[in-house]
């Protein structure tokens, strides 16, 4: 029997290390393009201040990048160390984009990273700009491939189950790469990175302007960040909407939970701006609703109906009962591969097999699945509502807040009135954590919202973990917490120190 404590601890460890990794990733994605913009201006105009800007923001980029690399290795190890059955079950498909990421993107990014810092005196101006652009390109390509892998977990296209090897296998590479979920997710996620990079530069530049330091340097950085940020924020919002549309197609359970929509409503459904979801009553204690809005956003129609949580659970109950038959047939086929009756039964129920596996959380032998157990498995099949409902709203709220901030920043830049609005400038500085909080909420919605699956509809999270002991998990979690806390303190210390120094950090006899 699979140890539930190990599964829960493995989830905790993965969530913590993945979110920690994503502290550093979005800044890399966004800041790299900002460096390209600054250096392009330098190459085109020859003004030394833009080179200084590229080098200074590049220094902060490097401090951040080091921890991004460090924590990224953890992610690659962890599928194997802690999610061994997942790795076996879907490695044939999921491993491909990860390997391609290494070969196509991470090599490029990492090789150019070194040349960016050490190649200033050895490359021509244009040559160095090309290096910076390839660095940015590499980091963004890397994001595409990781999101292709993640999109497949959300919507497992282009693959089929092989009963001999007991795993999913790739059947259509193009479908994997061109997964529509991956496309909207990619633009949404990298644009979130652009917003992060932009607000990072904006906030720190605002601080210099408030302190009357490095005025020219800060004004120019501020302007570039404002322009880049507004483009980024608009992309995030538009593609966030596109992601929502994609989810309504592939994961109705996630959408219903995000919206706290317990019962199916007549189309087009209303959108709960705020509500108080109550898991026990299976209803909202109260809600403020905009009529028709959800139906319009999620289905882009006025007559397509979106199923509520209760309807989804009822449908899943049928699929679980059918899936149990597939699991039983597969067991019979393993005992006797020639068993024709089992083969036919398997074929008839194969599409629901993942649902049948949901039973294994409650009964190791699926033949023992009673109606109560199937009921329990159906209840599991939709994630808890409140955490999704709230994290989604925090993400969206912060998105619109940042849009407002960038509009204000553009306006200040155009009229050059930074000094006249100290309160606004302080707001930029104090909003620095906003993009990170929004990113964390976004990933939480994506991953927690997919539960109880690691691969939606195919492989339950409960079956995906390695056969480890709780003691090992506690040990490794302690190790990660210790190392990561220490590293974060060191990173923040250097980041603050160099941000405070500003461009003078580049001159000898400082720091």
């Amino acid at each position, binding site marked *: 029997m699979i140890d539930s404590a190990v599964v829960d601890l493995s989830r905790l460890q993965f969530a913590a290390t993945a979110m920690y990794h994503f502290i550093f990733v979005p800044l890399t994605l966004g800041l790299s393009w900002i460096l390209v913009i600054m250096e392009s201006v330098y190459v085109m105009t020859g003004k030394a201040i833009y080179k200084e800007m590229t080098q200074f923001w590049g220094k902060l980029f*490097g*401090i951040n990048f*080091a*921890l991004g*690399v*460090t924590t*990224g*290795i*953890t992610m*690659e*190890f962890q599928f*194997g*160390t*802690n999610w*061994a059955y997942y*790795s*076996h079950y879907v*490695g*044939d498909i999921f*491993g*491909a984009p*990860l*390997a*391609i990421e*290494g*070969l*196509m993107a*991470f*090599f490029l990014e*990492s*090789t150019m*990273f*070194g*040349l960016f810092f*050490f*190649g*200033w005196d*050895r490359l021509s101006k244009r040559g160095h700009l090309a290096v910076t652009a390839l660095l940015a390109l590499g980091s963004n390509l890397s994001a595409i491939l990781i999101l292709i892998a993640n999109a497949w977990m959300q919507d497992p296209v282009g693959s089929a189950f*092989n009963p001999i*090897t*007991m*795993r999913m296998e*790739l*059947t259509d*590479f193009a479908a994997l790469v061109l997964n529509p979920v991956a496309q909207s997710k990619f633009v949404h996620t990298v644009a979130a990175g652009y917003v992060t990079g932009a607000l990072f530069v904006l906030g720190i530049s605002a601080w210099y302007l408030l302190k009357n330091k490095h005025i020219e340097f800060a004004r120019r950085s501020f302007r570039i960040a404002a322009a880049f940020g507004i483009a980024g924020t608009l992309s995030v919002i538009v593609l966030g909407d596109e992601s929502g549309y994609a989810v309504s197609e592939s994961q109705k359970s996630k959408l219903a939970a995000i919206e706290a929509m317990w019962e199916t409503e007549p189309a087009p459904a209303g959108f709960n701006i705020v509500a108080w979801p109550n898991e026990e009553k299976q209803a909202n204690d109260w809600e403020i609703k905009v009529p028709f809005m959800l139906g319009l956003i999620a289905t882009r129609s006025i007559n397509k109906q979106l199923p509520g949580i209760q309807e989804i659970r009822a449908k899943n109950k049928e699929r679980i009962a059918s899936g149990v038959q597939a699991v039983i047939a597969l067991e019979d086929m393993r005992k006797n591969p020639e068993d024709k009756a089992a083969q036919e039964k398997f074929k008839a129920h194969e599409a629901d097999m993942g649902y049948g596996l949901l039973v294994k959380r409650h009964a190791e032998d699926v033949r023992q699945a009673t109606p109560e157990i199937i009921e329990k498995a159906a209840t599991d099949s939709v994630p808890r509502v409140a955490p999704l409902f709230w994290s989604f709203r925090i993400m969206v709220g912060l998105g619109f807040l940042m849009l407002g901030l960038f509009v204000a920043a553009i306006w200040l830049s155009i009229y050059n009135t930074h000094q006249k609005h100290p309160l606004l400038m302080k707001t930029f500085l104090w909003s620095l954590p906003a993009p990170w909080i929004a990113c964390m909420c976004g990933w939480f919605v994506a991953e927690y919202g997919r539960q109880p699956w690691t691969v939606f509809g195919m492989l339950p999270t409960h079956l995906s973990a390695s*056969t*480890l002991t709780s003691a*090992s998990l506690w*040990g*490794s979690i302690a*190790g990660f917490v210790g*190392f990561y806390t220490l*590293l974060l303190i*060191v990173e923040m210390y*250097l980041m603050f*120190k*160099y941000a405070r120094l500003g461009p003078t950090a*580049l001159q000898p006899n*400082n*720091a």
Partner: protein
Amino acid sequence: MLDYATLKLIWWLLVGVLLIGFTIMDGHDMGVGILLNFLGKDDTERRVMINTIAPHWDGNQVWFITAGGAIFAAWPFVYATAFSGMYWAFLLVLFALFFRPVGFEYRSKLPDPTWRKSWDWGLFAGSAVPALVFGVAFGNLFLGVPFRLDDTMRSYYSGSFWALLNPLALLFGVVSLSLITLQGATFLAHRTDGDLQDRGKKAAQIVAVVLLVAFSLGGLWVSRIDGYVIQSIGDVGASINPLMKEVGRAPGAWFTNYGKHPVLWLVPALAYLGGIIVLLTIRAGLTLLAFIGSSLACVSVILTAGIALFPFVLPSSEMPKASLTAWDATSSHFTLNVMLWVALIFTPIVVAYTGWAYRVMAGKVTRDFIVKNDKVVY
């Protein structure tokens, strides 16, 4: 599309190529890290050493990442079973690797000597621990690893971390540690000058001898233990799982491939050739040639072990028939084919721009250079 059995063989070779690429490229970075505190007598000297690899270590580390990714994609059974089974060994490597990116990037950002000294030891750990553990892991492959598979292909590991540290495995650890240190020493001899270069040369000579001795002892020892043999297996040109075969154990069986194809003895012979090239060239100052000799030793040592094990990748001591091999632990026919094209297209591109990066940064790193560029370099 190539037939399945051929693709399985090609992927065995490609994983080998990636491991060799890792040992040559990331190996010389790790070698520098291992030697850092022993050859660098003051802070400036240590910075000289670090800056010989500063522009490249990050790109080189991707050989490691890509090898891991390729094993995931091409040998999912191996990735899943090895990483989860040897949980603490892999976490040890991971925790040690943490010190490298931050160590390189942060150590010279503050002038405080304690700060720098601490990171120097961090870089040592981040280099020496993985170098040692890789050899130890390889050694354990020859002994077999205690795991079993159930009929849903879920793996269960019954060994402990401490059992991995047996004498044979530790001897293999000495081989990998000296191999990687040799890479670092010859690279330093090539990219530094003066006293530091002399110390690098001396280190290279000592380590080359240690490597050849440990390599020979390892071979002798392996000839005296039981190896694994496939007694019967399903159609290797079709989709099969690891439980569809029978496996036995026999003394000296790890030399079966060499017995069948005596020409393969050339492979271990090249390791000696590589070591001898290092010893002959390094004193004469032909440092690039010495580095090439050391890299030849990397190719040969890894291939020697791989050929001995072939087709086994992860033999199981607890349930020999569950042993993972190049025939039954791979991805599907289609995935192997797609990934082959990916590898054929992108590997040459990677090699090309890596070569370009080394050309751009060519030349010796000197004390003067560090002093002049105090704020810019690592």
